[in-house]
């Protein structure tokens, strides 16, 4: 960690995005995590993604639970709304926030302990109900904050820093999200921002439950040989299925692709996802095949990364519940209290 805040020099002359903000405007307090923590890289990727998407910081709500990962919302988007909830309970608080104000961009930050251990029940329901959130798990295989106990995503047979083998079967959050009906599911690595930033952008622009499992090494407790969540292990076993480019509604497509090499997926708000296939024959729009392929690669000890599944034209919780179109804080007296006639009609319908 460092004590000094980033100097402000040059901050004003740095490039600005379409709405006039510099990247520094999307930063937060100085991180207190261990130097070299993957979580800090994820924060940097989030800053980059929000900057590139021209999202106003004060129109964002960042939600989290407890853990080193869940602390990180303090280290980005210092001008946004946020809620640091109880351990494993971020999804229900986020659900409330989403229902109250559907116009905010919602990002949830959690850890493998926060989500796969104590919070697994909450996670399951957020996914299956289609909560409109970019849900990011910073997955290091341990409880970093409580000093390195195995979490529920630690691979069976992997070793702790002290050499103890993990005997329990791992939970694969990507497999779970797929099975539970999440409509945007990705896996990435904190050490590969070229891959991670567009995945976060796509998730932020996705309407519905978007889930990204980011393998994010814990330098202090889980970066040794014998760990399957170390920088070296992930680099050696990483198989990326595609590269994503996120094209905003009014933005031109400038990159040239060979015909047939790119697949275009449209999102609800007009954002296009350009998916360039890499080596493997992989179809990110087929949920069942995705699940099968994932299991096959897991069995080989390899890590599939990229946008693993996306449902074109997906819908979210608001749609399912047919909620009011406006944020609740914008409803006026007239809408909230429509008068005796309407009440009488309602009562009559229930008789």
């Amino acid at each position: 960690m460092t004590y000094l805040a980033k100097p402000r020099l040059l901050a004003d002359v740095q490039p600005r995005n379409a709405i006039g903000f510099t990247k520094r405007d999307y930063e937060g307090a100085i991180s207190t995590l261990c130097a070299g923590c993957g979580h800090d890289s994820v924060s940097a990727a989030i800053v980059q993604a929000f900057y590139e998407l021209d999202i106003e910081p004060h129109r964002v709500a960042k939600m989290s639970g407890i853990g080193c990962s869940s602390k990180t919302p303090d280290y980005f988007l210092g001008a946004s709304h946020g809620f640091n909830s109880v351990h494993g309970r971020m999804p229900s608080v986020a659900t409330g926030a989403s229902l109250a104000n559907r116009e905010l961009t919602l990002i949830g930050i959690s850890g493998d302990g926060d989500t796969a251990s104590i919070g697994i029940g909450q996670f399951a329901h957020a996914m299956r109900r289609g909560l409109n959130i970019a849900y990011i798990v910073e997955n290091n295989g341990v409880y970093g904050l409580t000093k390195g106990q195995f979490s529920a995503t630690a691979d069976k047979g992997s070793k702790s820093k002290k050499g103890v083998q993990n005997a329990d079967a791992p939970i694969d959050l990507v497999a779970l999200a797929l099975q539970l009906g999440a409509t945007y599911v990705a896996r990435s690595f904190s050490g590969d921002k070229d891959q991670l930033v567009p995945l976060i952008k796509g998730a932020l622009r996705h309407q519905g439950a978007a889930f990204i499992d980011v393998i994010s090494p814990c330098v202090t407790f889980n970066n040794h040989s014998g760990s399957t969540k170390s920088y070296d292990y992930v680099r050696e076993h990483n198989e990326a299925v595609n590269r994503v480019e996120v094209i905003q509604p009014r933005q031109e497509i400038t990159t040239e692709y060979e015909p047939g090499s790119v697949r275009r997926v449209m999102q609800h708000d007009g954002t296009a996802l350009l998916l360039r296939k890499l080596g493997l024959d992989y179809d990110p729009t087929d949920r069942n095949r995705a699940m099968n392929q994932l299991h096959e690669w897991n069995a080989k000890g390899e890590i599939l990364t990229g946008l693993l599944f996306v449902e074109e034209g997906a819908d979210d919780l608001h749609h399912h519940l047919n909620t009011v179109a406006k944020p609740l804080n914008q409803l006026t007296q007239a809408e909230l209290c429509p008068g005796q006639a309407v009440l009488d009609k309602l009562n009559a319908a229930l008789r």
Partner: protein
Amino acid sequence: MSSTTPGVRPAPSHLHQVVDCQWACPAHTPVPEYLRLIAAGRYAESYEVNWWSNVFPGILGRVCDRPCEPACRRGRVDEEPVAICRMKRVAADLKGDISARLPKAPVKKNGKRVACVGAGPASLTVARDLALEGYAVTIFDGGTQAGGMMRSQIPKFRLPDSVIDEECGYVAALDVEVVLDRWINSLGALRSEGWDAIFVGTGAPRGREADLPGRAEAAANVHIGIEWLANLAFGHVETVGRRVVVLGGGNTAMDCCRSARRLGAEDVQVIVRSGFDEMKASPWEKEEALHEGVLIRNCMVPLAFEHTDGQLTGVTFEHVEVQRDARGKRALMPTGRMETVACDQVLVAIGQENTFPWIERDLGLAFDQWGMPALNEKTLQSSLPDVFFGGDSALGPKNIITAVAQGHTAAVSIDLFLRGKDVVADRPGDRITLASQKMGIHEWAYDSAISDLDREKMPTQALELALKDIKLELELGFDVKKACNEASRCLNCDMATVFTAKTCIECDSCVDICPTECITFTEDGTDDDLRTRLKAPAPNLEQMLYVADGLKTGRVMVKDENLCLHCGLCSERCPTNAWDMLKVDWQVAHAGSQAGSVGAEAAAVSA
């Protein structure tokens, strides 16, 4: 340092060039080091650091041309550079009695005698360097006081005599014999006196003439600027006309016009051929002149001096227009519009020339086609092996700090020559050492926090007072508080970021924390190609890319040195100490230095 051949990445040897101010200073003064000493209240040591490098800290702290300031890194990340020059004066003003700290000349001399012609900064530097090595040095000057043009040209309101006396005195105190009032009128005769070596530091003493119609007739009221300034300095001139025209746009013109205002001239116009921005005078000199009520007029070419009955009445000019051709070359196009500016006196400040009437042309000392001595520019040795040159007399008129730097160079050559060594092959190299500044996980031996203070303004005497007394020093100097504020603005560019690929785990932490985004990990390529693929644009081609290979993924680490703030955050964030902050101690070779070479040790330390 980066090479343009991917795959072959040598250990860094460019780190001393990252210290922009020290690199730009002709004498390579360790600027950040003396600024830190000032911040620590160690003024005497700060003065000492300066004295070894530039011999005249108090003088230069007032009137240096400051090539370091436009080069200063702070100027690239903030509105204005560090006030490097003024801080030398702080050290000089606050140092107290320094005599005990300054070295003494060895009691036992080495038996060799060296003569220096001229007592300007070049000769005084040669004398200081050689006296410390045990040489018996004698300086001859035709004038009555030591200091050369620092004494005779620079007006006292910019540089008081007391400062010149003090600093010339420190050189004389090293058993250097200063013989004044002795004009050398024959190099042949001087050589026959049996000196082991002769150094020529006679400056560029002739002011360029304005050969225009009416010059002869109006002679009584037309003066050559540098002659007039010298007469002023030595008290031979005490009055000036009411209306004065100064021809020329360099620093001499600025000194002339500002002096004329102080002598009581009411209407002072500096009239220049070029446009305002193209004028040679330093921006701050122009500013001061304007502030003191001088009118600066541009794009006017003098045609004739007007006169009646041998009395100057004015100068006629033609207005010109500045035009640029397709290649951007500037040309002054006549407009046919004439104007006569009425005046009582003209000061001609249109340039200086070298002249060597006292050097016989049959001694074997070769001159080039422009009448300048033919020299080896690296050694400043002439075609007569025992005769060396330095300062304005060597390569044409420049400034004090260049004269000092050339003095050091000539002293190294003289020392080698008199020790029977080859002045080229046996030349000592600079010494560069690197020392880690780490004192704890996030504790450094220097103040790594970046201050966001603005540059301190120099307090000055009130204008009414300044214009009344030509000897009253205008600038008052920084007090301790201003000095500390200004010192804190320095980015400590000598605290180098040094990367060790072997220990890097490529976690990206340094990339993420760097406030100026100057670090990138990417596929190798040539410098030109790499520059297109960095995290932040790298358009400043004068600043190097630091490229290191040897990473596990086969990528390279590329750091654009241009905007690094030396904040050390990369190093604090690195979990494996792959980044370290090492202090670059760069000691330029002086007479007596041992052989070695630039960068050799730097490479050895980091390898």
